């Protein structure tokens, strides 16, 4: 190896090590947020009680043990898994569509979930083999996955051009919004309120089952995303370049949309359409970590989880004794962070 090559290798290695450090700091921030989220609430659990309760649940008095294990932990962990899923879906959608405004919602998946949830709330259909309490998330999931399936059909049979995908996704958003408005029109006041609450997003209805399902979905999809990090990175050099080196971009788009649809469908079906995270989480990660998807993919998942965890903490801490729906707070948490990073980047020489 020549001195010159060592120089590039060394300089690039330095950048990569700095990025790994940033990933480590994001993980620490996430753990801190998780701790604050577990502590927040009227029960007044201290950090010492939380740590003791996590490792030795029997040492806590029964009331605190139930609050920690049946209320706080599921709420806090669903924030992490939903945030991570939306962050991952967001970064992959933005890259594959080469569109910084793209998010999991661009594809219409969450609007479809909203429609499914709306039908469950207003029409209350009885589904075979589905308990009554699970009809809403199942309907949301089925509609969201159905929308993902439709997009895949469009990619496969109409052509995989990114403009086609975005156009179809936006058409699906308008269609689902129109049908949801029709549901508003026929619903009673209670139904309308339930739909509105669902669309704002709410973490407090999740239990351990929901946590495991969303986490399992994220962990099942993540290896496939990591397997494509080189392809997704070189795609940031442009679609023409990717095609010129023999990459089947249409096929890659198919896989990424499949992953993104599954992640979004499972993320929103239990907690509602929590907006913003899939859009801004990846942008914050990009400002901190650059475009190399080896760093950007885990970074976006971490940023998504961090924003939602911080929003979850604030939703309980801002007004004593009340829980603000978390969807209201995600933008309030994320926008200042994004602005600070943008200003910091502008000031950099």
């Amino acid at each position, binding site marked *: 190896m*020549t001195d010159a090559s060592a120089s*590039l290798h060394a300089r690039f290695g330095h950048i990569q090590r700095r990025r790994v450090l940033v990933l480590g700091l994001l993980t620490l921030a996430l753990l801190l947020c998780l701790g604050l989220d577990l502590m927040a609430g009227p029960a007044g659990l201290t950090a010492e009680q939380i740590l003791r309760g996590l490792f030795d649940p029997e040492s806590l008095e029964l009331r605190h043990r139930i609050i920690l294990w049946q209320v706080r932990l599921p709420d806090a962990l669903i924030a992490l898994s939903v945030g991570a899923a939306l962050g991952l879906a967001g970064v992959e959608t933005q890259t594959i569509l080469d569109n910084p405004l793209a998010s999991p919602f661009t594809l219409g998946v969450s609007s479809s979930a909203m429609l499914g949830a709306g039908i469950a709330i207003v029409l209350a259909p009885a589904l075979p083999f589905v308990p009554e309490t699970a009809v809403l998330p199942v309907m949301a999931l089925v509609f969201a996955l159905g929308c993902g399936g439709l997009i895949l059909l469009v990619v496969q049979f109409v052509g995989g051009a990114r403009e086609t995908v975005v156009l179809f996704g936006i058409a699906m958003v308008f269609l689902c919004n129109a049908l949801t408005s029709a549901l508003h029109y026929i619903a009673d006041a209670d139904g309308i309120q339930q739909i509105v609450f669902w669309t704002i997003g709410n973490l407090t209805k999740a239990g351990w089952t929901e946590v495991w399902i969303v986490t399992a979905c994220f962990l099942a999809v993540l290896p496939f995303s990591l397997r494509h990090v080189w392809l997704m*990175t070189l795609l940031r050099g442009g679609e023409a370049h990717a095609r010129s*080196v023999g990459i089947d971009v249409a096929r890659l788009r198919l896989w990424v949309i499949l992953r993104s649809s599954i992640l979004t469908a499972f993320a929103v079906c239990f907690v509602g359409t929590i907006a913003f995270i899939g859009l801004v989480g990846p942008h914050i990660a990009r400002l901190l970590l650059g*475009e190399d998807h080896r760093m950007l993919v885990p970074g976006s998942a971490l940023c998504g989880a961090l924003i939602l965890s911080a929003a979850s903490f604030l939703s309980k801490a801002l007004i004593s004794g009340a829980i603000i729906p978390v969807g209201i707070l995600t933008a309030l948490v994320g926008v200042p962070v994004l602005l600070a990073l943008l200003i910091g980047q502008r000031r950099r020489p």
Partner: protein
Amino acid sequence: MTRLRAQGVSAHYGRTQILFDVTLPDMANGEILGLLGPNASGKSTLMRCLSREMRADGLIALDDMAQGDYGPAGWRDKVAAMPQSPPSPSALLPTELMWSTARALALDIPDAALAARIEAMFAALGLSSVALSPLHTLSGGKRQLVGLALALIREPALLLLDEPTSALDLHWRMVVLDLVRDRLAQRGGVAIAALHDIDLAARYCDQLALLSQGRVVAAGPPAEVLTPETLAAVFQVEAEIVARPGGGILVHIVRPLPRALHRHG
């Protein structure tokens, strides 16, 4: 020793035929073939057919083996293409783009050797100072040079360059084509370059193919292809051909001709 043949190549976009029975001169190892022609004459489409990005009828063979017999991965290993548009102005670093391309293509090179190869390529193309600068901070010319570096990161048997010098100044146009010629001389292979600069094509290309409306109007050595008659027919310009001291030709464009008088069908 690389040998390329393209005979009777036809291609369609949907129902519209773009290339009509295109036959290129057979190319021997180390040669550069220049594709010349006005806009929409089929140069880029022919490039896409040669890179297998687009389906074509007819014979395209490398080392006496037809394109279809290689399989997608086999052909991808043999051919490197530089598209007309430079890499997108994203926040990606040129080094990351080179690195990810090499790894996505599963090039079996250790990290240190890959870094050395990238650094050498950047040094040859004057990109060392921007190797770790985001692409969106680079000029169009620099990004075009990054695009060339990407094509050269492998050692392909067939190098396809679609207007590789369109955004470059006079100095870098010649540096780039010198580099391509040196690479072919040292490591073998053939190159096909779509060019708009006729003098550059005459100077650097061993053979030329003049395209118009998807057909080859003339093909062969530059002195045979670039004549006042062919240039008038294809480009609608009046031109004088001058012998260059030391060999080769210079093309002096005198003035444009009225298009209707020299429409080529």
